[in-house]
């Protein structure tokens, strides 16, 4: 078991190092002739006005919130799915009731109009 996670850890390091090494090699091979104009922010030829990190619509935030609810739900449903073959019908229904509560949340968000893109 520990071997498994050792392998995953090594794999993670290698997976991050491979593209990193490629970019490092490219940065050695590639020419470097920066000019102020070349390094300026691209905006279809005109100069950037004001701050680049602009305010965003609250809608994105709402979708991220709804996502969070469902993602947590999915994480709780995975053990239930893994144990599915040993469960009786009653336990399956119990798991579904848990999901139903969260579906109530989706219905609420839908009725509130949180899922409309205006």
């Amino acid at each position, binding site marked *: 078991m520990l071997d498994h996670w050792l392998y995953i850890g090594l794999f993670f390091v290698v997976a991050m190092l*491979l593209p990193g090494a490629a970019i490092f090699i490219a940065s050695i091979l590639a020419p470097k002739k920066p000019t102020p104009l070349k390094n300026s922010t691209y905006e279809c030829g005109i100069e950037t006005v004001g701050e680049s990190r602009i305010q965003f619509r609250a809608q994105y935030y709402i979708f991220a919130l709804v996502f969070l609810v469902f993602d947590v739900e999915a994480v709780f449903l995975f053990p239930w799915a893994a144990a599915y073959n040993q469960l009786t019908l009653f336990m399956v229904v119990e798991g579904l009731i848990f999901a139903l509560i969260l579906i109530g949340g989706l219905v609420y968000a839908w009725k509130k109009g949180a899922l409309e893109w205006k």
Partner: protein
Amino acid sequence: MPNFWTDPIGFLTQWLTALLIGWGVAPEVVNFSLSLLGAIVLPLMAMLFVIFLIWYERKLYGRMQDRLGPNRVGPWGIFQTFADMGKIFTKEVITPTGVDLVPYNLAPILAVGSVLMAWSVMPLSVNIVGVNLSVGLLLVIAAGGFGELGIMMAGWGSNNKYALLGGFRAVALLISYEIPMVIAMLIPAMLAGSLNLTEIVANQDVPFILMAPVAALIFFITQVAETARAPFDLTEAESEIVAGVNIEYSGLKFGMFYVGEFLHAFTASMLFATLFLGGYRGPFVEQFPLIGIVYLLIKTFFVYFFSILFRGGLPRFRIDQMLNLNWKILAPLSLAMVFITALVDKTAVQLIGGQLDSTMLLVVRTVLLLAVNGVVFWVVTRLMEINIKPARRVVSGARPVATPGVSQQSPEDPQVPQEPQVPGEVSA
């Protein structure tokens, strides 16, 4: 000593262990270095495989658009990607002023690294798998989430309004599509009773696409959305936000996003083949595990071909259409499928499980689930037809219609020719 033909990885491991211990290396060091070797070989092969993938996709894409695709460098243009690689490695890497250096430089690495992570648990054949992890499916999902983090970091770090808009869209879209994807993945996990990808494959005496076709369809749509490719490529819509998140990247940093995208699409197809098409399973796999890799690749390329058809054949969705598709159709449908599959399957097993032998029970379950899926699919398509909205969203009202014979020009400049006005024209 395991036989090379029935257990190639076990054979190589034992051989290398014996060799290294014979040289006087400590057993812990041997264990570590063999893990490291495996962890280097697998992602390296995946990275090199992309060279072929890019050629394959460009060739197919060209054919779909009535072009030849790359055909100059080597036979059928097969060395085109090597030429492109040579070019992109020597291109200047521009770092614009004002970027947030840490997320800006980390984003291309994450875009590739996250996809490579999924290969660590992907069962390539009976005994050929990076690591036989008990929670492999969760690791794949987590790795996918990492990739989205990379896109968001690129959007935030680039100090560019277009990139930031792309990052916003990534938050709303890529993240939303993860919900039906994860829930659709629940169904194969449930039918196999395990999160271990090897066990999911081993339990597919009947490919799960027959037991859960609707879940397979949902997974297919969402995996295309997850890779942010057409028709779901809103995060890098060239015509709207000028390539979005990769706008400020050049040279190999951009190339890494490109590699990540292709590899992600292929890995997602492989996951589809593993979860729904029976993975490496086929005749003679138990005797010769190496054949399993061929079966898996055939199935994966079959799925990949369809995702390229998808990409080439459909126009880009609008953001409200995409969100509606996700939250009002795919998410409720995937949850409903979990409910229906669990209830029907469990009830069938409890009612008639005792009377039939295992083969007959499997056949009955498959037929039952297939029928239920068909009914659900029919109902959903009927509901979508009933609730269909007008395809064109009217933003402004109709312009005043020109009355024939009455000039709308002001009397001061009668030389200006009168433009014919189309009645009822609206701008969408």
